């Protein structure tokens, strides 16, 4: 059975979706410990993340890996008796696309990469009003806030969001990163964020630096 675990890990890492899901089903049907099985999936995701980081994998691979994890998770989770939600996370990150902007591909990929790197991510979705970011920060007390935006209108929405957080007295212990199609160092300075990133790996690197896992 240990060999099957390795086999599953490799199938996921090699993007063999059909075989991976089939094997996971067989393993669970024959009584394989679902927690252990999800452990293999996590290890596989680490390999996928590493390959993405190294430029071997790209967005389509991350998307497919996410789908495999979802299908296998849906099979395994009902079989888990103990409460698995108490798993410790490396830190909490709030993420959302700023007000006026409806784009979410980039944000979703960043969320996925942060989650497989052990962070708890609270995703507020798209077109998020400034007040929702502020109240969510009060509620979840994150270490990092990620503001996403694809359009140039996001520059001002990001700036307003950062200002509102400052005014609410929540800025001091919070790191803010921004990302999206047109952000760069100029936009970072304009918005008052701490850093910007051009892809999901840069978001992970920033979080690792700010909140070591």
């Amino acid at each position, binding site marked *: 059975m240990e060999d099957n675990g390795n086999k599953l890990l490799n199938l996921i890492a090699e*993007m063999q*979706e059909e075989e991976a899901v089939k094997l996971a089903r067989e393993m669970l049907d024959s009584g394989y410990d679902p927690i252990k099985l999800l452990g293999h999936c996590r290890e596989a995701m680490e390999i996928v993340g590493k390959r993405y980081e190294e430029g*071997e*994998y*790209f*967005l*389509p*691979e991350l*998307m*497919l890996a996410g*789908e495999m994890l979802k299908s296998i998770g849906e099979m395994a989770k009902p079989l888990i008796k103990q409460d698995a939600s108490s798993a410790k996370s490396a830190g909490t990150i709030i993420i959302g696309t700023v007000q*006026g*902007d*409806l*784009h*979410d*591909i980039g944000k979703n990929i960043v969320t996925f990469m942060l989650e497989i790197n052990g962070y708890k991510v609270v995703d507020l979705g798209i*077109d998020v009003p400034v007040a929702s970011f502020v109240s969510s920060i009060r509620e979840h007390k994150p270490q990092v806030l990620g503001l996403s935006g694809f*359009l*140039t*209108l996001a*520059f*001002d929405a990001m700036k307003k969001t950062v200002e509102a957080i400052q005014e609410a007295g929540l800025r001091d212990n919070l790191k803010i990163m921004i990302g999206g*199609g*047109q*952000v*760069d160092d*100029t*936009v970072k300075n*304009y918005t008052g964020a701490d850093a910007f990133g*051009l*892809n999901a790996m840069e978001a992970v690197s920033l979080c690792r630096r700010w909140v070591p896992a």
Partner: protein
Amino acid sequence: MTTQAAASASAALYERRLKRLTDAIELREPDRLPTILFSHFWVARYCGMTCREAMYDYERLAVAVRKAAIDLEPDGIQPVHASIAFGPTMDILGYKQLEWPGHKGLAEDVGFQYLDAEYMTTTEYEEYLLDPTGFMLHKYLPRVAAALEPLSELPQYPGVLHTRIIQSMEVYARPEVRQALETLIRAGEEMQKMRAVQSRLFQELAEMGFPLAGHGTSHAPFDVAADYLRGSKGAMLDLFRNKEKLLSLMDRLGSLIPRTGIATVKAAGGNMVFIPLHWGLDGFMSPKQFATFFWPQFQKVLLNFIDAGIYPHVFWEGDCTSRLDVIKDVPPGKCVYFFERTNMFKAKEVLRGAVCIRGNVPASMLATGTPSEVREYCKKLFDVVGDGGGLILDAGVGVPDEAKPENVRAMFDCAKECVY
């Protein structure tokens, strides 16, 4: 100056500007660095309109375009109406593929946005491949606009023949179909109003000495598959799950896209097609996926346009630096590559002698920087990328909606000082 003298001065200006653009495209040194004015909502905002007003008020938008042309004196103008002035028509249609200012949740002064979704399911590949027009008519149009839903009832004509054609007329009198057809006529009349204003504007711009630098818009096959049919998630998963079907779809689109695109550009009496790309950039696909699913099919589209005497202006969104070696393979002096974040210096190195480069004053600089920063950036572009010709100055994604007017003026003024 007499009216006749003024007209001939404008005509000379028109020819000089067009030559400046054509020289750059065909990789000759023009007299000076040419510019194209391309914006979505900036022109409207520059003249005090909100984004919503720009989408609804054709006449005021035309006034704004004229003012921007006079103030900035670009060498070419990319049509604005065709890319934003369709609010009233969308209202009539109950359009669902876009969110636009003042509609549903969006504020009055933000641009419209496309809604990414699965507009064609995995199981519909074969249907599309068998009969793309039938699929668009019976399935796609009803999905993108409420008023078009009854089109799903229209006869499937490839199998309706002889006297059955006559009998099929019954469908058109059904109350819901009748209503859809009436709505289509109203939408058509509204679009004709917009087109009339646009035609008059084009005529006036030409008389003022400003050529158009865009006579239609086209696409890359993969972008159509990912943006408009399968949705971003669906298309990315299809790279693994439905590889063969996706490749067949791309082949089909590779024939359909230039057919429509060439007809549009020819009907407009022009020779430039704008092709914005969304999925070609670094990081979205692997080099291998790009070489399999994106470039070969898109290259065929480009060659079709070029063979028809049309210059493609390809907007390579994002950073495409790693693609340069692959995408340089087009006939020399026939294509414009409009870059957003691609390394322009590297692009010049790789594309010299092959492709005219357009771009790329960053949106962030135009929105938040200063005129002197803009000038410095433009000068550097001219010195390095403009060396020997083959450069058209533009902003990274056209002039962004939030650009400061003084920065935009600095960009256009600077080009006039960049003399060969």
